[in-house]
């Protein structure tokens, strides 16, 4: 059973269709890089998988639980870092992570242990007593990451986890993701194509709400299945990860 499954996800906002039928499945050990131009529907798709937005059509399942029919069961198995890593700015990371631990059902000593583990994994030791709103962008992102992995979820969904981080922090974040990848199904969205090579085992390119290419990343090469707008296969495309930039522009060109 795939740990994350979506089946024909469609999202309409009034007359505007943001997502036009996205079907994916992500297995254990996979790190799926979600690529696409701004406005392609990456965040909207992630919001539907996590249960924040209700799909207009289609379903999403996490560990077999339908997020619309049984959101709580699905969300228990999910760690989610929303875009911009929102957190309650008036709390300190320790208070915030204790709140998350408690709301996820940990009690007293186990809540402390879970919060402590997350603090260590995200290297937050130096700032745990400072209000989150006073932290730098990099630390805020790490607080959001700590929140997402606090309960060691089998499914992790992160919207631009490395956005705004400096090169050292990016490197550290990528290390964290690869370090836990074997036991989890992970989706990350990113604009940084080199990130695909360093952390992802698979890349999916979406454009105007549709999957236009999907394929594994094997070392330095990517083997994409390319899809036409009606969803039918339009052949395959093998490329070196160094050429991802060109592939990305080629497949999403009409949009610009």
């Amino acid at each position: 059973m795939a740990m994350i499954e979506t089946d024909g996800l469609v999202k309409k906002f009034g007359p505007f269709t943001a997502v036009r039928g996205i079907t994916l499945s992500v297995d254990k050990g996979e790190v799926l890089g979600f690529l696409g131009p701004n406005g392609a529907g990456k965040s909207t798709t992630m919001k539907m998988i996590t249960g924040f937005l209700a799909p207009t059509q289609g379903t999403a399942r996490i560990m077999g639980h339908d997020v619309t029919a049984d959101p709580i069961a699905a969300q228990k198995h999910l760690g989610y870092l929303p875009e911009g890593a929102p957190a309650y700015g008036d709390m300190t990371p320790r208070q915030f992570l204790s709140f998350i631990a408690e709301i996820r059902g940990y009690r007293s000593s186990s809540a402390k242990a879970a919060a402590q583990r997350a603090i260590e994994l995200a290297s937050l030791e130096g700032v745990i007593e400072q209000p989150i709103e006073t932290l730098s962008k990099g630390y805020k992102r790490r607080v959001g990451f700590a929140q997402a992995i606090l309960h060691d979820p089998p499914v992790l969904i992160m919207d631009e986890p490395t956005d705004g981080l400096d090169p050292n922090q990016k490197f550290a974040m990528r290390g964290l993701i690869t370090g836990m990848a074997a036991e989890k199904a992970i989706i990350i969205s990113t604009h940084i194509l080199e990130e695909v090579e360093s952390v992802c085992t698979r890349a999916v390119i979406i454009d105007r709400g549709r999957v236009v290419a999907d394929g594994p990343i094997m070392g330095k090469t990517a083997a994409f299945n390319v899809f036409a707008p009606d969803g039918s296969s339009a052949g395959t495309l093998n490329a070196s990860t160094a050429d991802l930039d060109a592939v990305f522009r080629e497949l999403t060109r009409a949009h610009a």
Partner: protein
Amino acid sequence: MNATFTVFKREFASYFATPLAYVFIVIFLFTMGAFTFYLGNFYENGSASLATFFGFHPWLYLFLIPAISMRLWAEERRAGTIELLLTLPIPLSSAVMGKFFAAWVFAGVALALTFPMWLTVNYLGSPDNGVILASYIGSWLMAGGYLAIGACISAATNNQVIAFVVSAVVCFLFTVAGAPLVVDFFANFAPNAVVQTIASFSFLSHFNAIMNGVIDLRDIIFFGSLIAIFLFATAVLIDLKKAG
């Protein structure tokens, strides 16, 4: 239930983590005192009761309560934390109730801090403390009613200014529903039963009934069901926004 309490604790602590709580409480106590002593001629009345004090509550709540409620949901939307809160494995009702109760208990704390008024009348004379207790309970129930209306309006927008202004207006309508201004207007064309129904929504008449020292079950049910209805509407609104 645990989730509701966890949300409540976080929300309640957040009032005191920022200057908001202190500024609000100071303004609350100051306006309550100023109205009672200057506009209400507390001393000149020469009566040992807090009727003038409580009489101003509905009017002061009109702008003080929306100041608390405006941020309830609008702030979560603006900061994006709503996305976090609503993807945690808790029922929506826990989030709605936890946040509401935190605001309501906070309003209760501000109200309880007016106790020097109570000490003053007891020092100056011998008031009917039963009436005063009933009035405090009534005032707190009424604050809950205003807060529930404000929470619902806050859920409908991510702009706190809009939330504040609209809440103040809607609360005003609920306050004066029984006043001649409203009743006469509807009496011109609506059947009597409709006029009576509208008038029965008046916060003023329910609060005045309690202020007389009688906590009637009907008044408690009125405020209780009003809170329940508006919290339900809050949850529905949040769910509707989810559907986009």
